[in-house]
């Protein structure tokens, strides 16, 4: 990562106004969005949107041509181009032909994308942004930090300063008063403008209509007062049928600002008369700028289903810490990373793609059903293909692909780590490694790994058998979790097998874009785990479970090792996470817990992969309550803890404040015990409490359940 990029992250993290405002907003957004969607089947709604937008993306050229014909038949002039430069030349020509001196704009990210304002100003044309947020950043000489709320990073004090300069009068920070200043300053510009430039939220091919969604009322003035209206539209806004307007209007305001509908929606179909009786000149520019290329790429075609609501930013644990500007000058957040990689160039996303912690929050709320984390993974993969892995990473992964060497080094680490270890934790590391223990202690490598302990546990012989996939953390740092798992399954009469040849699940390599390494890990594990004839392959690490159940096949396919796919699918079918399996055993009456004792309050932390990929959240909660605990939910129970595998090592400065928030939410419940199903989360959260000092015990669900078994 470049120094400059790290510096911008640190500036953002140390900007208390920014993190304060974004933090408060993200908390309120979640509540308000839920309320706005009350009574609506969100899955059904987004299914309709995704289907309609995907259909349009499949034959973009045809749909754009239909739009052009229909809009032109109504008297609009439609210009289609792939090239942002041609867009600017076209608009300048329209301006020259019409003697335009003054332009008013309503919010358009497409114009930001091509830096239109600079082009107009260079030709001596004055440009006023009229969306309040856009006007603020225009006056401040900044760029938008959020596609819906461009000035969300600024305080009222900063706005008051900027406006004071503009009106030559000392203004105080009264927000309604500042808004009035904007109204009064911009009104004469609206009335004097000879050209209005807008974007569009939807373009409908079958009717030639454009749809504008706003709250302030500026788009109505931009499309009414100037005699020329230019609408610049990215082709991803095209839909075939007018009927698609309904689901998009149902979702866009709810997802963007938690409104049932914005104050104004305008559906413009062909030119309308001006107030002087002349007919308005309506120019509609359909801009491609790499969107067709995206549509042709099977991994990125889904990006064209985006309706630009910004909800992926609003739920992102990283965005709410660092804001938009760290991501770049135009599109920000996860979707911004993807758009930057395409509209700009792949290389431009090299640093910012690393900001995604892969927690999957955005996938739950996206009204276009985009899988942003998956697309970011694909960017990582392509970056590694293009540029190769960083040298240090390459060295590490070459070890990970050699199980004996890798495990040998882990064993050695339990000895080497000793000088830094106090109790079960490493509290400090020397020199440049010290960032890793800033705000969090690391677990000491266990004296005896699970694989050595397992050998000493006698197994019941029966007809039911489970293969245990431990994963590195349980095997070498938390063998007690593995012991608990074996105890639970043995109690239900299930024999547990532990194939020695199992190795790292490949997640660290995969999430770094090193697919070849991950694929080799996948192949080695498939081989090891399928050797035993067992009913289940069980894991107590959700990241490993996801690797076995979802990623192995995808990874092997991505690198072309298709001969492994059948076996990968066979393994996936058998794979189950611990809580799901134990819940089943309890429900079948094969396992039961001691009764009669009140164990007191517990709170539960949802791990990202368990909740959002494996869709498991109720099972561990029910089990813990059946075992005698009283469940007290924490605030944001399913928000990422900041671990994210190697994320916490690459970006410890971001991981630490996310962890801090998680610790606070846990402490606020008053529970002295927090359970979770992921050893990675255990590592992060228990390491955090070790430094925080609060007397909260952090336990894997497996251990708590095993302790409460009857008999």
């Amino acid at each position: 990562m470049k120094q400059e990029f790290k510096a911008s992250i640190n500036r953002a993290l140390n900007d208390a106004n920014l993190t304060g405002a974004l933090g408060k907003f993200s908390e309120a957004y979640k509540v308000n969005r839920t309320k706005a969607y009350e009574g609506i089947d969100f899955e059904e709604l987004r299914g309709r949107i995704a289907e309609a937008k995907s259909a349009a993306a499949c034959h973009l050229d045809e749909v754009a041509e239909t739009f052009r014909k229909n809009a032109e038949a109504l008297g609009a002039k439609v210009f289609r181009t792939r090239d942002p430069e041609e867009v600017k030349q076209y608009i300048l020509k329209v301006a020259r032909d019409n003697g335009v001196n003054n332009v008013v704009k309503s919010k358009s990210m497409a114009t930001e994308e091509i830096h239109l304002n600079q082009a107009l100003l260079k030709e001596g044309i004055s440009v006023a942004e009229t969306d309040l947020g856009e006007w603020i950043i225009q006056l401040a000489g900044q760029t938008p930090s959020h596609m819906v709320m461009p000035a969300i990073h600024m305080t009222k004090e900063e706005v008051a300063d900027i406006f004071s300069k503009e009106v030559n009068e000392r203004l105080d920070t009264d927000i309604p008063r500042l808004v009035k200043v904007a109204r009064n300053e911009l009104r004469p510009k609206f009335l004097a403008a000879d050209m209005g430039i807008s974007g569009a939220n939807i373009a409908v091919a079958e009717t030639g209509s454009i749809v504008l969604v706003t709250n302030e009322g500026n788009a109505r003035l931009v499309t009414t007062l100037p005699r020329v209206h230019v609408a610049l539209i990215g082709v991803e806004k095209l839909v075939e049928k007018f009927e698609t307007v309904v689901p998009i209007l149902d979702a866009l305001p709810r997802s963007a600002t938690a409104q049932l509908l914005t104050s104004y929606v305008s559906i413009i179909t062909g030119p309308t008369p001006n107030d002087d009786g002349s007919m308005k000149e309506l120019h509609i520019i359909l801009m491609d700028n790499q969107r067709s290329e995206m549509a042709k790429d099977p991994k990125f075609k889904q990006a064209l289903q985006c309706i630009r609501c910004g909800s992926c930013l609003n739920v992102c644990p990283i965005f709410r810490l660092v804001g938009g500007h760290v991501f770049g000058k135009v599109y920000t957040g996860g979707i911004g990373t993807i758009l930057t990689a395409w509209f700009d160039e792949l290389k431009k996303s090299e640093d910012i793609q690393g900001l995604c912690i892969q927690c999957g929050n955005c996938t739950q709320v996206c009204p276009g059903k985009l899988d942003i984390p998956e697309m970011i993974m694909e960017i990582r993969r392509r970056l590694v293909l293009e540029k190769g892995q960083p040298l240090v990473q390459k060295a590490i992964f070459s070890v990970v692909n050699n199980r004996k060497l890798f495990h040998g080094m882990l064993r050695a680490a339990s000895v080497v780590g000793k000088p830094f270890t106090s109790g079960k934790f490493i509290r400090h590391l020397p020199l440049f490694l010290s960032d890793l223990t800033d705000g969090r202690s690391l677990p000491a490598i266990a004296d005896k790994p699970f694989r050595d302990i397992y050998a000493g546990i006698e197994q019941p012989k029966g007809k039911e058998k489970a293969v245990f996939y431990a994963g590195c953390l349980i095997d070498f740092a938390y063998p007690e979790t593995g012991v608990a798992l074996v105890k639970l399954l043995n109690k239900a009469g299930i024999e547990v097998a532990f194939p020695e040849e199992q190795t790292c699940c490949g997640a660290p390599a995969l999430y770094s874009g090193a697919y070849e390494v991950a694929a080799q890990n996948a192949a080695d594990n498939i081989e090891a785990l399928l050797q035993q004839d067992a009913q289940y392959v069980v894991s107590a690490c959700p990241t490993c479970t996801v690797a076995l159940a979802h990623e192995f096949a995808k990874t092997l396919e991505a690198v072309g090792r298709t001969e492994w796919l059948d076996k990968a699918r066979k393994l996936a079918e058998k794979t189950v996470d611990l809580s799901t399996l134990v819940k089943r055993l309890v429900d079948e009456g094969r396992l039961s817990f001691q009764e009669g004792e009140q164990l007191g309050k517990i709170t539960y932390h949802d791990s990202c992969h368990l909740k959002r990929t494996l869709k498991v959240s109720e099972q561990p909660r029910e089990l813990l309550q059946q075992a005698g605990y009283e469940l007290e939910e924490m605030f944001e129970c399913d928000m990422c803890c900041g671990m994210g595998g190697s994320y916490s090592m690459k970006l410890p400065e971001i991981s630490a404040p996310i962890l801090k928030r998680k610790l606070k939410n846990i402490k606020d419940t008053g529970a002295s015990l927090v359970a979770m199903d992921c050893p990675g989360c255990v590592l992060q959260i228990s390491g955090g409490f070790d430094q925080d000092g609060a007397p909260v015990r952090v336990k894997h669900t497996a251990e708590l359940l095993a302790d409460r078994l009857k008999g």
Partner: protein
Amino acid sequence: MYEQFKARAVGVGAEVHRVATCSDAVEFVLSFLKQEGVCERPGSYAVWAKGPFLDAVGQGPLAGVPGLGFEVTRERAAQAKVGISDMSFAVADTGSLVQDQAAPDQRLASALTAIHIALVPSGNIVADKGALFTRITPKNSRYIAFITGPSRTADIERVLTIGVHGPERLIVLFVDELGGEKK
């Protein structure tokens, strides 16, 4: 549906009233203009855009009201405190009003003024956008305008503030006598 519309519209800051007859509506508007101090002075005008309501009652009962004009030019609308216009439909589930505003005076009267009074036939309340688009479509309406509450922004520190570029007050007046197509 009237109650649902009213709850939604009030929820987003609109004021909702209902009268039986067109002459009740005229009385409502005239007393409102008086109360707001509408007069023949820039900044205090009222503009009334021509439409079904004026067609029904004629300009007779409104003649001689100081400051009130029926020629909605941009100059006049920009200096008007109150704009009065018809809105064809009310959408119950979002509290929205809808009209084909292809004629620019409809937009000037409802966008430039500080207060917008919308006259709506009580019989034209529809359940949702799906029902709405069976009654109005881009095939024959070039500028379909939805208005839902007053103009708003939250662009400074996410604080909701009313009245940016559009009206800061939206007054919805349902008129039973205007009827509307019955469902």
